[in-house]
């Protein structure tokens, strides 16, 4: 029975989505949100249950391709599965009151459920091709969420933003498919567990470099790594609130999770050759993201660029190829998912109230006119800049510790310079977040908002949605053992080979 848990985990949101599609128009519209709530809540429950009780599931789907539905959970994917189920549930709850005005709610809930299937599938898949299929299931729903419910006042329009998002990601995943097929051509199997155990045995070292480059490119676009990031600000700014929460909270993690789960173990020698370049791009990403945020004019774009910086840390952690580096990467992954999710919820709430997210128009004084929302924004900003005692710190600290003494094959001096620049990036991150607090939260309320009536502070429902995220950020900050106990053994086994 326990091996049916994982397929059940995927079946519940899929059933919800199909139900919304099949039900006749009138009833589906009325019951859209209840179905969404039940489906996501059930998924969360099954996720929690399967984290403890699930055993790997294995069934053949397309024998000729060698595609098998292989699902499994271990220390690396547990936190991400829980994070996905948790954030999706919060998004649906958030939609209950904040009805996105454009388009129908039924379609939105259906799309979010389909998104959840794709995301959960990506984290559960233990078959390379199955991972690729779920990796792509996410694209079309997110495209429609951005293009139909997005904010059209973005420069260039929301459809172009959605297009750049999907074209960038698809280019990456097309190249990733080539990598996957090359692996199969050389080793004859798609099974990740077997490939990890064999540690890239079937492939010569330059084939492994080719495989790592192909897989790495696909994941780097999704992470996003520095030069391939230009889709992120447009997509995040144009996406509706729950869209950007899921985009930042989970979709970015699929890239780094892929690197850790697939690219590094399957092609270890390739990883060793490419890791220094990956580290260099990561560090440039950190500094580039931080500098870009310093002078950003739009609040949502600023948070999007902060994701480029934070994911730079995660990539640096992976580039060290050490257990502590990868532990740091996973921790930063989960922490960034929670904190950026919270930041986008808050910025979305601010934007819904002020109908603008440009910092100049918002003016200062958020503390003054909306103390609770202002306080939460400052909390999230401080958590995001990596204050110890909050979730953001441990990931970045472990990454730097990993860079301090990287894997034996890597050049130590080079990684020390990377660590130093990343440290500088840390300070720049503090600078732009603190100046964000100064420009938005502190100071006087602009006259324009003084007499605006609709500026209510955070509503009880919003607080109910955000409170668990805040609590998790604090718990993960004060008690890192909770997450590290789960990831450390899995990472040691992964790198131990």
């Amino acid at each position, binding site marked *: 029975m326990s091996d049916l848990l994982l397929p059940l985990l995927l079946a519940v949101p899929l059933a919800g989505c199909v139900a919304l599609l099949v039900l006749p128009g009138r009833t589906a519209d009325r019951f859209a949100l209840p179905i969404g709530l039940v489906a996501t809540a059930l998924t969360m429950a099954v996720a929690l249950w399967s984290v403890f009780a699930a055993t790997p599931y294995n069934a053949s789907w397309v024998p000729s391709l060698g595609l098998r539905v292989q699902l499994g959970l271990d220390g690396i994917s547990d936190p991400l599965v829980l994070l996905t189920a948790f954030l999706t549930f919060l998004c649906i709850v958030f939609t209950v009151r904040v009805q996105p005005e454009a388009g129908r709610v039924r379609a939105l809930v259906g799309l979010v459920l389909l998104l959840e299937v794709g995301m959960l599938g990506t984290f559960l898949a233990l078959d390379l091709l199955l991972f690729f299929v779920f990796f792509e299931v996410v694209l079309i729903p997110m495209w429609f969420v951005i293009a139909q419910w997005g904010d059209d006042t973005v420069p260039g329009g929301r459809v172009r933003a959605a297009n750049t998002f999907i074209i960038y990601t698809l280019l990456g995943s097309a190249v990733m498919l080539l990598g996957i097929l090359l692996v199969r051509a050389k080793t004859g199997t798609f099974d990740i567990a077997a490939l990890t155990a064999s540690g890239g045995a079937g492939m010569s070292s330059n084939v492994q470099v080719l495989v790592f480059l192909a897989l790495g490119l696909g994941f780097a676009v999704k992470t996003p790594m520095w030069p391939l990031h230009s889709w992120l600000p447009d997509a995040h700014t144009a996406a509706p609130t729950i869209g950007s929460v899921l985009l930042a909270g989970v979709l970015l993690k699929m890239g780094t999770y892929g690197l850790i789960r697939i690219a590094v173990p399957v092609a270890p020698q390739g990883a060793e050759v490419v890791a220094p370049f990956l580290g260099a791009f990561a560090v440039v990403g950190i500094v*580039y993201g931080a500098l870009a945020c310093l002078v950003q004019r739009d609040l949502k774009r600023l948070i999007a660029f902060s994701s480029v910086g934070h994911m730079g840390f995660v990539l640096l952690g992976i580039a060290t190829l050490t257990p502590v580096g990868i532990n740091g990467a996973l921790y930063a992954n989960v922490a960034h998912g929670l904190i950026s999710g919270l930041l986008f919820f808050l910025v979305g709430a601010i934007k819904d109230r002020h109908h603008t997210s440009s910092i100049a128009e918002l003016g200062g004084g958020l503390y003054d006119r909306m103390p609770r929302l202002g306080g939460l924004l400052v909390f999230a900003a401080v958590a995001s800049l990596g204050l110890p005692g909050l979730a953001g710190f441990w990931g970045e600290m472990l990454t730097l510790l990993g860079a301090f003494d990287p894997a034996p094959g890597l050049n130590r001096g080079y990684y020390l310079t990377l660590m130093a620049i990343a440290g500088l990036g840390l300070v720049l991150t*503090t600078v732009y977040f603190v100046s964000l607090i100064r420009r938005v939260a502190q100071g006087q309320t602009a006259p324009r908002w003084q007499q605006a009536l609709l500026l209510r502070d955070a509503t009880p429902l919003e607080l109910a949605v955000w409170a668990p995220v805040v609590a998790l950020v604090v718990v993960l900050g004060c008690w890192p053992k909770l997450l590290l106990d789960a990831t450390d053994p899995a990472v040691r086994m992964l790198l131990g080979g």
Partner: protein
Amino acid sequence: MIPVVVAILAPALAALLGLGAGRRFPRLVVPVAIAGSAVAFLAALVLAARAISSAPLHDRLTGPTVPTGTFPFGLDVRLDGLAALVSVAVAAVALAVQVYSTAYLKGDPRYSSYAALVSLFTAAMMLVVFADDLLVLLVGWEVMGVCSYFLIGHHWEQEGARAGAVKAFVVTRLGDVGFLFGIFTLAASVKSFDIERVQAAALHGQISQSTATVATLLLLCGVVGKSAQFPLHTWLPDAMAGPTPVSALIHAATMVAAGIYLVARLYDVFLLAPSTLAVMAVIAAITMLGAALAALAQDDIKRVLAYSTVSQLAYMLAALAVGSAGAAAFHLLTHAAFKALLFLAAGSVIHAVGTNLMRDMGGLRRAMPVTFVTMTVGLAALAGLPPFSGFFSKEAVLAAAEHAARGEGPVATWAAWLVLVTGLLTVGITAAYATRLWLMTFFHEARGPVSPHEASPAMRWPLLVLAVPATLLGAVGLRSSWLPGWLGLDESLRPGAVTAALSVLLAVAGAVSVALVWRRAPATDPSGRLGRFRPAFARAFYVDELYDRVAVRPVRSAARAVLWTDDEVVAAGSLGSGRCAGRAGALLQLTQRGNVQAYLTGVLAGIVLLAVGVVTLT
């Protein structure tokens, strides 16, 4: 070991309650905050009593270890003489500040968040004091930083507060990055984050001198940042924009002293690196002298005290540089007492007169007798006049410097001489600016607009309470069984004969010269005599402007450059490829213009090309 945990958790709990329920139960805020600090103070007293009774106190409580991937770290706390005494100082000042703030910030709309943040700060400081794991210490270290950021920015309506808060947090954060790398170097060499094991390794010589030097220099960045020493001192004067009790607690007694406390805690590692000690000596000398001179020319009373704090901290760093952790701890304790007293007194003066600027003050001697007396005690201790605590602790430092100058200390003799000379010189200058402050504030006729009145009891009592240690704490250093014993050190902290005489002479000379200048023109500011040097001293040798040009402007222009590249180059790249695909499509459309024979030409041309290609290539 229970009191240690209580000392940390009580204020933390108070903070949590304050932040959480502050808005809904405003009445509960003040009692909860004070209760938190009081419980912490009692716990600290119990610990101090244990430290005094069983002299070389050493105790550990190890919590769960957290796996990281390489060597794990654990939630451990430890108790020894130094920790107990410093925790008493912290708890005492925190309690005084909490009580004082109830009056000073009466009616402030955001008092609940203020009190909660002060409690959180106290808990963080306690964590730093009692931490036995480098990472746990770092957590406390940075939580203190963020509390100071929020508290400086308490009056965020004012631009000064916002700017001061940002500057304080960024500069300390810069230092903390170096601090983090120092922790990595140290922990990697010992394969553990545990301070106990680091000290043991240092004593048994398991840490090589080069690693020790690199680690201590990096740790020094953190210390210099947090304790506002020479390169990273610019944030402390601007931090005065925060409420005065905050300045008293954080920017006088506790946070800024955390750096010195850390060096004292890891002193065995520092002793392995004489070159670091030399660097510390140089930094201490520069900071000591520069800050004292700057204090001489300040007009705002709080900025005078801020620069004075920087200078006094340099004394403690100097003591550590010349090899005497005991002197540093001693001066730390006495400084905590009299500097907190000075700030709170200044607070009541500002509260009465309504402005910080000394040129609007005067003649407060009669109007505010209690403040006058306690401030005089404080200033005397600061100047180092004999009966007061300041004299004894400063003498301990100078004695240690003289001792090292004779060649017996761990540091190079030239560094010891540098410390000794600048130390003595600064004693004179300190006495000068202390007297200037004293005269301009309390003597001559009242220049202030409103009639000044004495502070309310809630503000007066803390002054009186703090005045006691400010005067008597000096005696603690006389017997070697007292303070040195409690700290577990076997060095004597009695003032040396020669240095004591010299420093008293210099102090009196400084005070008298300022008094003479003042007597000639009581209405004007005595520092006017500095003439051409005054603006330089007032602007603290233009270090701020230098940093602005060297660091702030380049970063901002780099940011604009990054934004430009992002909009133009990277985005254009992605759009460009889309557009050129479209143009290629348009080009292809030209081949489909409908003429059949054009199609046939294309077909036949294609066939010919294909055939020639295949025949020639295979």
